[in-house]
Each structure stands twice: as C-alpha cells, then as structure tokens.
C-alpha cells in the first residue's frame, strides 16, 4: 500500500498505527469495518483515505439521532487527531461508506 515517493519509515509507521486504530475491536459498534488507502489529494500531495463502512440501517440511525451523530463526530475527530499526531506527510481524510 506504500507509495514509492514517501520515505519508507513514514509509511511503515503510519500503516502500523492505522492497522491498530482500525482493528475491528477498536471500532464503534455501528461501524462494520474500516480500511485505508495511501494515495494523493487533488493537488498530488500524500493523503491517507480512511473509509468507515456502515450499513444503510445504521446510516439512517446516525442521520436521525443527533446524540449518535455527535458521538460519530467525536470518534472521527479522535481518529483524525491520532493520525495527525504521527506528523507524517499523509493528511487524513475520513469518510463514511454505506455498505449493504
């Protein structure tokens, strides 16, 4: 998953942290699974895209329930901060994906 333009230590550290952060047992219960992709943003700068898979049923609950959505927001914020703290060149973008 590493891109050749980044120092190997940068990506190794990031990927190892991501594997831990996105492990099934560390995800909130409404998130089915999570994955990441090392890529670039629309300017060509390094970006780590993190996808959080939720079922359409859970997506519906989240959009209707303000308290649950706020919890999701907090989770996303924590995850983003943990990735940013690593100070690699990869800027995180966390997105929810509806999966049946």
């Amino acid at each position: 998953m590493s891109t050749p333009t980044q120092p190997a230590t940068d990506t190794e550290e990031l990927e190892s942290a991501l594997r831990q952060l996105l492990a099934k047992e560390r995800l909130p219960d409404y998130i089915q699974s999570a994955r990441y992709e090392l890529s670039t943003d629309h300017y060509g700068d390094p970006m780590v895209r993190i996808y959080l898979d939720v079922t359409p049923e859970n997506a519906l609950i989240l959009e209707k329930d303000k308290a649950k959505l706020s919890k999701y927001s907090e989770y996303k914020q924590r995850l983003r901060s943990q990735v940013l703290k690593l100070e690699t060149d990869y800027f995180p973008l966390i997105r929810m994906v509806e999966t049946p």
Partner: protein
Amino acid sequence: MSAQKLPEHLLEQAKHLARRERTRPRQASLRRAISTAYYALFHFLIRETLRQLGPNLGQENYNRAYRWFDHGTMRSVAKAFSQEVVRIPNSKEVLIPANDSRIQFIAQHFADLQELRHLADYGSSAVFARPDTIEYIDFLDSAFRIWPAVKKSPEANAFLLSLLLWERWGKQR
C-alpha cells in the same frame, strides 16, 4: 460591503440540500451540499481575514483584496494549522507551539471540505453518505457560532494572516 452574509446564506443552503429528500437522499443533493459547505467556509475565512486586517477598506479595495486568496495556499495553511504544533513552511521552525484546538478543528474541516468538494464536483464514482454530510455541516454551524470567542486569539490571528502570507513566515530578512 456586498455579500457580507454570503457564508451564512451558503451554510443555510447546504443544510437545506443535505436534508432535502425525506428518505433516500439523492447524490446530487449531497454533492451540492458538500460543495456549498466548502464555499461557506471559504468565504467565511476570507471575510474574517479582511475584517481583521483591513477593517476600514472601501468597497472597491475590499473586492480587490478578496481576489488575493487562493484555494491552494489556503489548503496548505489549513493542513499546517490542523496540527497542534504549527511549523513554518519548508522549515522545522515552530510558528505556534500549542495551537488552539478550535482553530485546529476549523483548519482540519477546511482541508477535508476542499478535498470533498473536489470529489463532489469532479469525482464521477464518488458516493456520499448523508450522516457524513450532515456532520460536516453541523460542524460548520458550530464553527461559525464559536468564531467570535476565538477570533481575537493569537492563533486565530496567525491563521488568518497565513491565509494571505503563508510563504512569508520563512523569510529571514
């Protein structure tokens, strides 16, 4: 000044678009909501910068200064200010040793929204989830509300100044 309320009106429009369909949201509505939310924050940051740096500018010069802002530079600044320790561009020197978390959040959301706007406007296969879209818009709503409490902080001053003069921080003499 013309369009002084543009950011608030764009935010209102983004909220409407994100919840436009009662049941299954159309991707077109979510894409336009994201794009509109990005522009709400883009215009908000420009307006607040000009209010602080040029509060007495006449209309014509205000409009001229408005055009100085550039999406790419604003993205670089947002990425740097997303961190707790903000570093001067192309340097290890520290600009802000302990960034205000509220400025960090605004900067992070700006960087996110710019990338998402690009996806929303040009990504043919991109699919947006409504909870995510609403979450961004809710954040923007609270950011606009907390701004008066944070705008006079040294971190906010440095953030806004950077939106125009980012590369200049590294200038030695």
